């Protein structure tokens, strides 16, 4: 197992290096001059020269790249050209909402996806099966932005005034400012990595509301999270339902399941404790792979629901030519994606010894 993990880690390293090269290259060949984009009419020759020296744009490209590698290795992602604050600081503010949204979506997708898949497979070709598969096919076909907009219209306009009306924009009701966990806990003077961790958690609305003991904020944050999370969850939910169904159907036809039935176990025991365990193996892979789709979908969902997360920050930074932010955010998101895929592979190998033996 250890050799397997080590080998997988080693394979990931060149990919991560490749990501750094690709992101650096893309941001350097982006059209437009960051100096002109930032300083506008004040972009005189002298001002631009000073600007370029400040951000290192005056150096040859290979030197810039080496300098960049050194910075990344020490956890320094540079300073946002637009906001004038370190990118890491911006990440601590913008990454948590996206992580929260993605986790909520993945949770919804996994919970309902597996249930739907099991429901369909145990009654093959029944109305329930056909209905589930129609839903699953529609679910992978409807664009996230269409679903998001229609949900927003349904819950914010059509159902307005009813108890199940939901807000369609932002993370809190207007005017709400959540407290920082560190401040509430009387640790306002704290610095260092623990403070960073506290601030990171603090920027996730639901953990924040729980840890600062604010039930009113919890309800408000949940209400704001439901629509975007459901919109984002639909595609992975449909995929998980399909995979669970086909995988469970495979397993239900195998000899050991017939043995379990012959022993006189109830159908519930056969499916729940015998078949499902093996059937869920491919589902684990799909859950890991959905994350890339979730991050892509997050760009759209965050735009529609006015969520200040990673996706929206990247697309705004591209428009504003804030290279440093684009670079830093894309690297962190992509490396995170590689690591999650690595975790998926490892958990898969852990669950199914055959995978370790093969490779």
């Amino acid at each position, binding site marked *: 197992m250890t050799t397997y993990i080590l080998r997988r880690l080693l394979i990931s390293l060149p990919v991560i290096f*490749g*990501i750094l090269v690709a992101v650096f290259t893309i941001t350097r060949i982006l059209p437009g001059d960051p100096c002109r984009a930032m300083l506008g009419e004040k972009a005189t020759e002298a001002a631009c020269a000073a600007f370029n020296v400040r951000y290192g744009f005056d150096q040859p490209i290979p030197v810039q790249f080496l300098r960049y590698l050194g910075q990344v290795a020490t956890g320094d992602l540079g300073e946002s050209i637009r906001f004038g604050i370190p990118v890491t600081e911006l990440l601590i503010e913008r990454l948590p909402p996206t992580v929260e949204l993605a986790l909520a979506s993945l949770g919804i997708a996994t919970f309902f996806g597996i249930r739907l898949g099991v429901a369909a497979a145990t009654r093959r070709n029944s109305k329930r099966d056909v209905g589930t598969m129609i839903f699953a*096919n*529609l679910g992978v*076909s409807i664009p996230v*932005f269409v679903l998001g907009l229609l949900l927003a219209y349904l819950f914010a306009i059509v159902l307005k005034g009813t108890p199940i009306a939901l807000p369609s924009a932002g993370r809190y009701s207007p005017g709400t400012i959540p407290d920082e966990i560190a401040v509430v806990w009387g640790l306002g003077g704290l610095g260092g990595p623990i403070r960073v961790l506290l601030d990171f958690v603090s920027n996730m609305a639901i953990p924040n509301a729980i840890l600062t003991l604010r039930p009113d904020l919890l309800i408000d944050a949940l209400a704001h999270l439901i629509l975007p999370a459901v919109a984002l969850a639909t595609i992975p939910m449909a995929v998980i339902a399909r995979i669970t169904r086909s995988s469970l159907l495979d397993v239900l036809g195998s000899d050991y399941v017939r043995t379990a039935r012959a022993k006189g176990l109830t159908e519930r025991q056969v499916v729940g404790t015998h078949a499902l365990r093996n059937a869920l193996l491919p589902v684990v892979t799909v859950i890991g792979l959905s994350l890339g789709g979730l991050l*892509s979908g997050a760009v759209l969902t965050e735009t529609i629901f006015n969520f200040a997360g990673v996706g929206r920050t990247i697309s705004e930074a591209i428009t504003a030519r804030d290279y440093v932010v*684009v670079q830093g955010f894309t690297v962190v998101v*992509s490396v995170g994606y590689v690591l999650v895929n690595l975790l998926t592979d490892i958990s898969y190998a852990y669950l199914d010894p055959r995978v370790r033996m093969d490779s």
Partner: protein
Amino acid sequence: MTAATVPTKRAAAQTPLRRALRSFLEQRTARVGLAIFAVLLVAALGADVFASYGPTEVLIGKEQGADRLAAPCINLFGCTGPQHLFGLDGNVRDVFSRVLHGARVSLQVGILTVGFAIVLGTLLGSIAGFVGGWLDTLIMRVMDVLLAFPSLLLAIAIVTVIGPGLINAQIAIGIVAIPIYARVMRASVLSLRDREFVSASRALGASEAAILFRKVLPNALTPIIVQGTLGIAGAILDVAALSFLGLGAQPPLAEWGSMIGGDRNLLFSAPHVVLFPGIAITLTVLAFNLIGDGLRDALDPRLQR
């Protein structure tokens, strides 16, 4: 003479292609997909005939009572004004006509984008699999890096470099899709490269290129066709998403994603401007997904019942 032709006809009826076709048409979902595709094709080809208005025709001043964002007006349901099946959009254009013309754009987008990805992907995959060695490692590692990015983010980054526009959005989505085909092709090449019929051609003096194009490529086509059909669905979704964000098709072109993106803020007063193009995208993507699934089941011998 008749006796001689009967056996050949029977043999023809059982060619793998016919068997696959029959197995494809036996599936209800595949037939549904094919039916939706047929409707789309008719809509795309006959858009000029079926649409009462031009896709970019602004009706203000041309038609009495044509209001911005007017709700659908269907004569059959008792509406007495000029008929607008899907209503009017924020620029007083007929949404039905725009959705019909959008079918033309989206079908072309899906097929061209995937075609671009397939050509480059199969080429890279064949080279990697056939040549092997350091070239294989280099190509496949680059593909790994491409796959390491969340697809839409990478596409957004590429569009920013080459500039927004429908063609550029297609190129970006095409580039992002290349690794899928490269991997499929490489796997096929690797499994075929050392087979006896390939060694036989080599022994007979066929050049490497001839072996690749005449022997290996035709045998690797099945997974590429299946992936490609499913890929068309994905490409239509992704290009629509880029257009929605303003990075793909530019107004006034009648493209479904940009129709929704352009009128997004009008949703709360006029949901039809989002609803109808949204249904159109969903059905189109659904059709290609169903056809792709059907092809996979029909062409994969392991799944034959």
